[in-house]
């Protein structure tokens, strides 16, 4: 579903961000990307939703190859991915409802479908009473819920989350994380970059740890190794 094969990424001014990494995220999986700032977590996510392209190697997402993708295909791919960020990235002049609807409007969905879906998602993220609120009238946690609802509106196969709880207090963090777990339980894969080791420890999802552009630990490999009888690195 998401496959990185010997991927390196070098920015013209920022140096080497990823150094020959390979991994695979399967259907319905939940995986954390952890590691210090500058480790390459956000670069991996940008390569997944094809805002950036590898300098070497190949990124394959839902059958789309980074090496041969055309611009119009990227728009189509992004409709099948949901992306949420630390800074929410909501359209400030639109209400919660309009922000969610917007992601459907760009696909040319009929108005009746939009209304039904938006209302269902607002209920799912617990914001049906705030449908007409502007982002600035919502708390951080509520804004992130709107962003998640927007990311889910096109029924994506994977939700990409770049530090989704980075701007939230503990209570809001727990709420947003529970929402992501529910989404995953319903069958959507989640790839989440985070600094919050508490969240990582409290769950038994796969952890891919990054440092200086390399994968230094992948719990999936560790599990495979221990199944083979090999020792697990500390």
């Amino acid at each position, binding site marked *: 579903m998401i496959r990185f094969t010997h991927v390196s990424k070098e920015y013209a001014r920022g140096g080497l961000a990823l150094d020959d990494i390979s991994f695979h995220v399967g259907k319905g999986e939940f995986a954390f990307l952890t590691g210090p700032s500058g480790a390459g977590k956000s670069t991996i996510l940008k390569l997944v939703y094809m805002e950036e392209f590898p300098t070497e190697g190949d990124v394959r997402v839902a059958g789309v190859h980074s090496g041969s993708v055309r611009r119009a295909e990227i*728009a189509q791919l992004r409709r099948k991915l949901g992306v949420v960020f630390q800074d929410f990235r909501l359209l400030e002049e639109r209400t919660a409802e309009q922000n969610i609807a*917007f992601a459907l409007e760009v696909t040319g969905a009929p108005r009746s479908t939009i209304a039904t879906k938006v209302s269902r998602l607002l209920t799912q993220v617990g914001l049906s009473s705030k449908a007409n609120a502007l982002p600035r009238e919502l708390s951080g946690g509520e804004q992130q819920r709107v962003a998640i609802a927007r990311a889910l509106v096109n029924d994506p196969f994977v939700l990409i989350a770049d530090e989704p709880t980075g701007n939230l207090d503990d209570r809001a963090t727990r709420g947003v994380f529970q929402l992501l777990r529910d989404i995953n339980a319903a069958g959507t894969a989640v790839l989440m970059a985070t600094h919050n080791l508490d969240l990582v420890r409290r769950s038994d999802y796969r952890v891919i740890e990054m440092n200086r552009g390399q994968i230094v630990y992948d719990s999936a490999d560790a599990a495979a190794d221990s199944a083979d009888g090999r020792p697990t690195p500390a």
Partner: protein
Amino acid sequence: MGLTLRETLLAFRRAPLLSALSVMTIAFSLFSLGLFVLVAVNIRDALQQVEERVEIRAYIADGTPIEAIAAALGDIGSFPEVARAEGISQEEALERARSELGEFRDVFDAAFLPASIEVRLKPGFRDPATVSAVAARIRTYPFVDDVRFGEEWVRKLYNIRNIATAAGIILGVAFAAVAIIIIGATIRMAVLARGREISIMRLVGATDGFIRRPFLLEGLAKGILGGLLALGLTYLAHSLISRTLVETRFFDERIILAGIAFGALIGFLGSAVSVGRHLRRV
């Protein structure tokens, strides 16, 4: 289309100040261009009026039979360059001289002035070379004593017309270029102000065409509004000049439509270029 229209209206409503500023900038850029065109059109009119006075006068020898003159008139009238050829008898010449010279009205008698043929040329045939060529052809009639057409005056007039045309084209292009640059920069500012919105649109899977359409419509609308406003301002300036300085002619429908179309075109193309450039970067 409904969605594009809604997005366009939303853009105006969300940033009314910036939108008004863009429209005003477009309006004032086109207004300065409009003022220049107004001056150019009126100078051209004035020169045309002077040019219409270019005439060739062939003086006819005394005693020429009236039939010969009539034949020559028909002949000259059919020259492709000639608009009108008119015979002036000695009596008519005297009458004119009397009315034009005022206090000397009693000095002349009919025999004092010769009969003549007065020839007016069609527009486009009033340059010195053509006027001389027609004059030379008229001179070949045996009964023509002399041909006058104010050679020096025609040459000077022609030079002034050429200078005015060249200056008009150069200044017009310069004014249009300045308008295009200013309007382009204004529209670019409006696009940059919405850079974040564009990146969010792309993130949720909007195609380039979907993102571009409202901007193009917005550019077109701003161009048309700016054009109309510029037209109003130019009309005010024209009325003011006509009332206080000199009677001027306002634009005909063709120029008015061309002006508004020019505004619409710059608005549209300016948006297309700015959004295109921005989209390539995100």
